[in-house]
C-alpha cells in the first residue's frame, strides 16, 4: 500500500516509536502514583516528552505542555475554558468540526466566520482584521486546513489578537511537526495538536500548549493535593485527570526526537515538494480539478482534488483497490468545503509525511491517469 492519508494519521513512524510504546507497556506504570521503579520510569518518559515538545514549540516551561488524547480533546479544553454562553467567537472559514461542534454545544454563542479564498493569506488576514470587532471574545483558527492543506497566516492573525487583547486558540492539527511553530512568539492562549499525525506518535496522544490556565474538562486523580476536592490550580495537573497513556507518550517522545533529528523545516520542504509535484501532475489529467497553491509556502502536506462526473468516494475506492490510501468526502470539515465551494461534491484528499517518496507520487499519478482512461 502507498499511504497518502497522513493528514488523518501518519501510518509510517520511526521504528523507535513502536519499540518505545511496547517497552512502556511491559515496564512502566503511571507517573505520580508512586516512586517505585515502574512509576518513576513512566514519570521520566512523561517529563522528557514535555521537555521535547516544549523545545520543539518554544514553550517557556514544560509544565505548560498538557497531555491530551488527541487535538479534539485539547480544543475542547481550550474552547470550554474561554468560550462561555452568550459570547462571540471568531473563526476562520476552514475550521474542522473539532472547533465548530464544541462551539455549537455552548448555548447562545455567536460564531463569526472570517472567509477568504483558498491560498490567499493576505485576504485571510484582512478578513480577520475586519471581523475582529469589539464584541469578539475569542478567536479560534486552524494553522493549516485539513482538507486543502491551505496555510493560514497564523502569525499575522496572532498579531491582530495581541493588538486587540483577544485570546487566540490555534488548531495545529495539520501543522505540528510539519511547519515550524513558535508558541512563545504567537502569544496564543492555547495551541492544540494531535500526537498521531505530524508528530509521529501513536493514536490516543495529543498536546495542548497552555498560555493561560485551563478549566478542567475532566476531574479526577492527579497524584497531587489529594485531600482537596477541587482540581489543582497548577499545570499540568489541572488538565490531566486520571492515568496517562504512557505507552502512547513513550512513542510520542520518540516521534518528537525524530523530528528534532530530521528538522521540521526539512520535513516541511520535503512534503511541499511532493505535494507540488502531485498537484502539477494531477492538473494535467483530463477532468481533474486540483486545489493547488501557486506559492509553495501557502500549502502544507495535503492536497484536494475532484474529478468531473465522478463520485469522490467511489474514485477513492478505486484508488484503494489499486493500493493507494487516500481519504474522500468532507473530512469532518463541512465549513471548509462550504468556503471553498466543494460542499456538494466533497473532494479526494492526498496527504504526505516525511516517509513518502517521489517515486510513490509518480506511481500515484500514473495509476490515477490510468483510472481516468478506464471509465
Amino acid at each position, binding site marked *: 500500500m502507498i499511504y497518502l492519508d497522513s493528514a488523518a494519521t501518519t501510518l509510517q513512524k520511526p521504528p523507535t516509536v513502536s519499540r518505545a510504546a511496547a517497552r512502556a507497556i511491559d515496564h512502566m506504570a503511571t507517573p505520580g502514583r508512586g516512586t517505585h521503579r515502574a512509576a518513576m520510569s513512566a514519570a521520566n518518559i512523561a517529563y522528557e516528552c514535555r521537555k521535547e515538545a516544549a523545545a520543539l514549540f518554544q514553550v517557556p516551561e514544560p509544565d505548560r505542555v498538557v497531555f491530551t488524547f488527541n487535538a479534539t480533546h485539547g480544543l475542547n479544553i481550550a474552547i470550554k475554558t474561554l468560550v462561555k454562553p452568550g459570547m462571540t467567537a471568531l473563526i476562520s472559514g476552514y475550521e474542522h468540526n473539532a472547533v465548530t461542534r464544541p462551539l455549537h454545544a455552548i448555548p447562545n454563542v455567536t460564531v463569526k466566520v472570517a472567509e477568504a479564498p483558498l491560498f490567499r493569506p493576505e485576504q485571510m488576514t484582512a478578513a480577520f482584521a475586519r471581523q475582529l470587532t469589539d464584541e469578539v471574545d475569542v478567536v479560534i483558527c486552524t494553522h493549516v486546513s485539513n482538507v486543502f492543506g491551505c496555510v493560514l497566516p497564523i502569525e499575522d492573525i496572532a498579531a491582530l489578537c495581541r493588538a486587540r487583547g483577544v485570546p487566540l486558540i490555534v488548531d495545529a492539527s495539520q501543522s505540528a511537526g510539519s511547519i515550524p511553530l513558535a508558541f512563545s512568539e504567537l502569544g496564543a492562549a492555547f495551541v492544540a495538536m494531535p500526537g498521531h499525525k505530524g508528530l509521529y506518535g501513536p493514536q490516543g496522544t495529543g498536546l495542548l500548549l497552555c498560555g493561560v490556565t485551563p478549566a478542567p474538562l475532566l476531574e479526577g486523580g492527579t497524584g*497531587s493535593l489529594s485531600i482537596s476536592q477541587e482540581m489543582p490550580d497548577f*499545570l499540568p495537573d489541572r488538565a490531566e485527570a486520571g492515568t496517562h497513556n504512557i505507552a502512547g507518550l513513550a512513542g510520542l517522545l520518540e516521534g518528537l526526537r525524530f523530528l528534532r533529528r530530521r528538522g521540521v523545516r526539512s520535513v516541511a520542504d520535503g512534503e511541499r515538494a511532493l505535494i507540488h509535484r502531485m498537484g502539477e501532475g494531477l492538473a494535467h489529467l483530463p477532468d481533474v480539478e486540483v486545489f493547488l497553491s501557486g506559492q509553495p509556502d501557502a500549502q502544507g502536506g495535503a492536497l484536494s482534488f475532484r474529478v468531473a462526473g465522478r463520485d469522490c468516494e467511489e474514485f477513492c475506492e478505486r484508488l484503494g483497490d489499486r493500493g493507494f490510501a487516500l481519504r474522500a468526502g468532507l473530512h469532518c470539515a463541512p465549513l471548509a468545503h462550504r468556503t471553498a465551494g466543494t460542499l456538494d461534491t466533497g473532494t479526494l484528499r492526498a496527504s504526505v509525511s516525511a516517509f513518502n517518496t517521489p517515486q510513490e507520487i509518480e506511481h500515484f499519478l500514473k495509476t490515477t491517469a490510468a483510472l481516468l482512461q478506464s471509465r
Partner: protein
Amino acid sequence: MLYYLIVCRSLTYAQRTAEALERAGITAHILRSPKSVAGEGCSHSVRISQRSLTDALPVLHRARLDPKRVFITSGAGDYREVEV
C-alpha cells in the same frame, strides 16, 4: 544523616527542580512527600543532602524554581520546616 526535603506542588515541578540541581552538580532524588509534610494530600519532594542546601537555593532561584516549603529530617519521621 540529616537531609533536606524540598516540597513541590507537582511531580513535573519536582522533576524540573531535581533536573536544575543535578545540572549544577547537586545530587537530588525525587520521592513522594511524607504524609506529615504533604499538606493537602499527595505531593512530591526533592531530597538533597544537608550540605547542599546553601548551593541549591541560588541554583533554584536562577531557574525560577524557588522552593515554597523546605523541611529538614533525619529520615526517621522527624520533620521540621525551615525558613529559606
